[in-house]
């Protein structure tokens, strides 16, 4: 049976889970955002008067959105990496203490 983890280790686990949630959630949100927006842009493209301008707005909108969500996802990835490293370090320290006691 594994030893019981400390409170700090538990919170690092929560941080790891949340950071992964942000990393992958941002990618999924981006897909939802862009595909919902595409529904509106398709309507605007079907109207000759708005076709040209909607294409420009669509490109700008999609690029800004991609940049924002990618930034958020990368931040989540970095946070997950930090949490995992901190948890591993904490576990090593915990194991050393158990072995020395």
């Amino acid at each position, binding site marked *: 049976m594994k030893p019981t983890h400390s409170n700090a*280790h538990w919170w690092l686990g929560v941080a790891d*889970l949340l950071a992964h949630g942000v990393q992958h959630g941002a990618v999924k949100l981006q897909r939802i955002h862009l595909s919902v927006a595409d529904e509106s842009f398709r309507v605007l493209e079907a109207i000759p008067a708005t076709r040209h301008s909607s294409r420009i707005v669509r490109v700008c909108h999609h690029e800004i959105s991609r940049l924002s969500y990618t930034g958020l996802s990368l931040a989540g990835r970095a946070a997950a990496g930090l949490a995992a490293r901190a948890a591993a370090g904490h576990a090593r320290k915990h194991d050393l203490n158990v072995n020395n006691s």
Partner: protein
Amino acid sequence: MVSVPSAGRVQQHISAIASGFLGDWLEHRGNALAVPMTVFADGEPLDLLNPRPAAPGSVLCLSIHGLMELESVWDFPGQPGEHYGTRLAERLGNASALKLRFNSGRPIYRNGQDLAALLERLVSNWPVPVTRLVLLGHSMGGLLIRSACHYGAENDDSWVRLNPDCVYIGSPHDGSWLAVGAHKAAGWLNRVPRDYLKVVGEVIDLRSEGIRNLSRGEVFEPGTAHQPLLAGARHYVISGLLVRGEEHLVNALFGDALVHEASARGARQPGWQLTGTANFPGVDHIRLAHHSAVARQLEEWLV
């Protein structure tokens, strides 16, 4: 008086829920939210290599919770520490009531293999010779018992020779309608040519191996042929229904809210010989784990 759960208790519940949803992933990452398999006696974890409970009995009564649950699911409302196991131990005499906590998101067969090994260590190291073993499983816990019995018999474990009493309480032997429904919904949404609906399908599909096994009632390693119930052991089934009228449409659609009566009885499992079955109309899935009528039935069967 309203009892307020402690911060530690809240953390344990969060761990149990996270483990149920993503237990295999959490375990793979070494995340501290993954619940380790632990046996409790009187609310204290036992060291399996040297178990020292307050009053060890020669009859062991182990209660095993279900998906995303903790061992506290067994406690009667307003009576912490009082559960089917303690009632049975009281009536049987010379018995110890134990509870298991485990990571319910892991594949059921892996939890079953670990449970078989755990029972072997527990019975071998118990301070007094064990003469009888009673295993109570709620929901997924019942599937774990079947799995552990198979792997215990395969390893020729000594606890299997005690011919345990196995009680399956609201266990979806043929799968759970909700888990099957979620699987079908996810499949349908993933086929729709709209990315936002696909994402919803992917989120529904984001679930642990334990939940996937539960949806199909799978308890053995993939590729294993169908296995019968453990020979020599006594097998009891308890099922619940949402509404008191047995023939009510709600019961036909939802069973005890999560499991249909037929699935709880293993109606599609070939060659099952059950020692006893009981159905409790008006008792839902969660209340099956701590209901006075079920307690009386268990005493009638096992004492």
